[in-house]
């Protein structure tokens, strides 16, 4: 791939982001132009901003990669990512806005009148933010590596530095415009190449992608394996090998491999003939990739369970994502917040039509990515494969720019949320200096992790953050908004038990500590048991402590559910403290 175009595209995106963020389209007027104040952010703009911030690397790269790897059942990812907003729209959006809360910790404090619950909620905001930032940084590393051959930590560092710099310097002041801009950029970056690719595909007699059988090499392909892998051949095959297979060194010569498992050392290049089946990667004990194998391993029980885990996590997890919640504050009132969510559904739904196209095309034209373990790169390499020439390179550059927009927007939104919570609730005193320090801290932790932890499919890693969010904030928000019996001890217990269990399971999975078999599946997809656990604990403990229902619960609920104009003055006597 021509590096110049790609690097130029990435640079342009980074610069544009920083510029729009810093200079902004701030409304600057003299008195002759009245009613600046009535120009609150319109739902359409705010919705584009929410979508821009929400569509992360997982959406831009990850979904296509998973569809390539594992076929159509991975379409539950885009469905879940979108449907999460439906739940948000129906149950949470308007009351959350009416609560006046800026962060999720604010909501916990507003509803439960307890500083302790607030602190606990803050811990979860930070945890979820970090879990979510990690795959963004890793995705950036992967993208830059594919584009320029740079070491895989460089991309993470670039994104981390740009985001930290921009946020700490106060450069994200007009963040609504930045994020809205990023949405349209991402949509364009994915849509335009997709059109070209589909035309090229049609011109190529429209070969069908086959998901029920192993993928087949479309033409003679040389594959370089960067990590040592074990692969399964379903039928004997003769390959051109230079490198080490099963402990024997070969140099540029045809080797006949029998069916069964073979070990291929790092750095080996395999030349597959046209029409050969793409071998399957098998799980090895030390393979960090192995944790997600139960999904593709074929046991129906696992699959069904994992699918339910995914659905539950994404449907219920969206509302607890820290960077989504803060954007609702920009809506002038609850009604506008609801409308905004409706537009978000449309925008995100439109966007998610595209990644599966890339996944299917990748299955046809770049099947070897499944073997090398870089399936997330499918979106980036396709234009070069299918269209080729200058056009292919330009389209590839456009996609690279879009991918970087995805990393930047989500990472900056998350960093701002996490840094905001760190300044308010963790660092000792307030002030601008502390916000900068907090920004550094918010980014440093996931950056450090991203350098050591590698090789996890981006969409799966994001799924883990969703699972934790669904088990902690979903019960808190839904019960907090719809049930007046929720008490501070109940909320605390629910957060600790539900969210804590999910967090532990997720951490154990990422650390590779989970034992094989069902236990592994249960821990890799915790939402199925941790969400009911969170709800159950919250309800049970609340029922057991009925006397601890906050004094202002009735007034708060009235404020959450009544349109703003109707609420008189729901305050206790001598309220401001």
């Amino acid at each position, binding site marked *: 791939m021509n590096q110049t175009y790609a690097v130029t595209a990435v640079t342009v995106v980074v610069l544009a982001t920083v510029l729009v963020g810093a200079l902004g389209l701030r409304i600057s007027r003299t008195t002759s132009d009245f009613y600046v104040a*009535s120009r*609150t*952010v319109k739902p359409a703009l705010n919705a584009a901003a929410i979508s821009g911030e929400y569509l992360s690397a997982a959406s831009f790269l990850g979904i296509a990669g998973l569809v390539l790897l594992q076929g159509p059942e991975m379409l539950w990812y885009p469905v879940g990512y979108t449907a999460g907003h439906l739940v948000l729209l129906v149950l949470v959006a308007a009351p959350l806005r009416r609560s006046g809360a800026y962060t999720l910790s*604010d909501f916990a404090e507003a509803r439960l009148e307890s500083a302790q619950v607030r602190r606990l909620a803050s811990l979860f905001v930070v945890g979820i933010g970090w879990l979510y930032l990690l795959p963004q940084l890793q995705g950036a590393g992967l993208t830059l590596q594919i584009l320029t051959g740079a070491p895989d930590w460089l991309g993470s560092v670039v994104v981390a530095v740009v985001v930290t710099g921009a946020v700490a310097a106060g450069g994200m002041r007009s963040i609504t415009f930045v994020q809205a801009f990023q949405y349209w950029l991402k949509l364009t970056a994915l849509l335009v190449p997709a059109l070209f690719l589909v035309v090229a595909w049609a011109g190529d007699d429209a070969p069908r992608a086959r998901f029920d059988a192993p993928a087949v090499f479309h033409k003679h392909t040389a594959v370089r394996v960067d990590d040592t892998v074990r692969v399964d051949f379903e039928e004997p095959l003769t390959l051109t090998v230079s490198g080490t297979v099963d402990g024997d060194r070969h140099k540029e010569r045809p080797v006949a491999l029998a069916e069964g498992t073979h070990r291929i050392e790092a750095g080996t290049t395999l030349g597959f003939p046209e029409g050969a089946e793409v071998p399957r990667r098998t799980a090895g004990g030390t393979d960090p990739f192995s944790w997600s194998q139960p999904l593709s391993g074929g046991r129906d029980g696992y699959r069904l369970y994992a699918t339910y885990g995914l659905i539950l996590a994404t449907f219920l997890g969206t509302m607890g994502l820290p960077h989504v919640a803060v954007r609702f504050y*920009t809506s002038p009132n609850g009604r506008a917040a609801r409308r905004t969510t409706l537009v978000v559904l449309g925008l995100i739904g439109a966007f998610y039509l595209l990644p599966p196209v890339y996944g299917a095309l990748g299955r046809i034209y770049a099947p070897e990515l499944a073997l090398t373990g870089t399936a997330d790169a499918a979106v980036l390499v396709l234009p070069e494969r299918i269209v080729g020439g200058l056009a292919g390179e330009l389209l590839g550059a456009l996609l690279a720019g879009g991918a970087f927009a995805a990393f930047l927007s989500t990472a900056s939104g998350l960093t701002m949320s996490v840094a905001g919570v760190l300044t308010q609730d963790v660092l000792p005193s307030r002030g601008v200096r502390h916000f900068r320090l907090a920004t550094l801290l918010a980014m440093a932790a996931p950056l450090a992790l991203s350098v050591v932890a590698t090789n996890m499919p981006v969409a799966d890693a994001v799924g883990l953050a969703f699972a934790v969010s669904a088990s902690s904030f979903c019960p808190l928000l839904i019960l907090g908004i719809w049930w007046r019996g929720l008490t501070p001890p109940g909320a605390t217990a629910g957060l600790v038990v539900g969210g804590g269990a999910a967090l532990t399971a997720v951490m154990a999975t990422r650390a590779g500590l989970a034992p094989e078999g069902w236990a592994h599946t249960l821990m890799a997809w915790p939402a199925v048991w941790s969400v009911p656990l969170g709800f159950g604990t919250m309800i049970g403990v609340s029922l057991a402590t009925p006397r601890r229902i906050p004094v202002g619960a009735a007034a708060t609920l009235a404020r959450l559910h009544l*349109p703003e104009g109707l609420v008189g003055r729901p305050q206790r006597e001598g309220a401001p403290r």
Partner: protein
Amino acid sequence: MTGTGVAALAAAGILLLALGTAIGRLTAGRGGDRPDLDLGTPVERATFHTLHTASLAAPPLRAGLTEDTARKATRRLRPLLGTEALCLTDRDAVLAWDGPGADRHRQQVMALVAEVLDSGRSRSVHAECDELECPLRWVVIAPLTGEEGVLGALVAYGSRESAVLVRAASEVARWVSVQLELAELDRSRTRLIEAEIRALRAQISPHFIFNSLAAIASFVRTDPERARELLLEFADFTRYSFRRHGEFTQLADELRSIEQYLALAGARFGDRLKVTLQVAPEVLPVTLPFLCLQPLVENAVKHGLEDSRNECRVTIAAQDAGAEAMVTIEDDGVGMDPDVLRGILAGERTTSSGIGLSNVDERLRQVYGDDYGLVIETAVGAGMKITVRIPKYRAGVHSSAASRTLT
């Protein structure tokens, strides 16, 4: 161990550290009970212990006498008295009961208390109970008094008649009364500030109204359409400023009122007044104390124009800064001597223009804490720049009215 393992361990380490810090901060205040070398004689230690328990019971009571505060307070006070059961009432009902026997005795408390509530004097009576095993045999009732007479009663149950219990209960009741009086003081301070807001609303009127009406009058012949528009602005502006309800408002509403003010001032001063508004739309929904920016703008216009003959530029900017909104109001007028300003803000001297500033400063500090007072940069002849930071969320701060739908 794989790279992922290391990563997860590191993450777990960080989480543990955070958790430890949180727990450490939570428990930092409670570590004082450990036996140490020299902690005084037993008597001194008992005194310390008593004082410590009393200080723990004080914060809930400072919020006034309600069920919630009474429950928290009785939990602390019962060990202090060493009684079987302790109960707090207000004039109408039992607020909290700590200890056993609530099922049998709680019903009768109000009947026992009635006389004390009337007389305001402590009394000690036999608790009539059919249960032989019941430890609640004797009741001491002591009144809780505030500025407005008896607020409620403290009811202590003992197993036998004891002069010590009577004495202790009276002393504790007196101590509780002091706390309640302090709570009363807090409330009257709040009322004072509210009265000041009302005064501020009234204070806007005279000069500004005369001047505006005069300016509008000058347009009636020459430009009737403009005069009509200005009158409407004037009506809207006064409607907002004289609003009777609600302590908080949205930044959008406050800015709108400021725009109306500037339109009226512009009618009076013509081209001499140049205004730049720079508002990030993200911060428009922020809730803030009612009328806390308008006096600052008024101040800027006054400084910029009334004391000099030149033209004046006023810049009003509202920016998004993470969990806060930052509003700056800048003028290039005559400025002020920082020492004079300090005196005004400290309430030592009052000038007509200073009341607005010190009132806004005080209200911001009261609502958001001392970190959020006004930041003013000025010198004589160098203009003035006022920076206000407003947190996007603060418990208890809700705007009471939605955006106005009127024109």
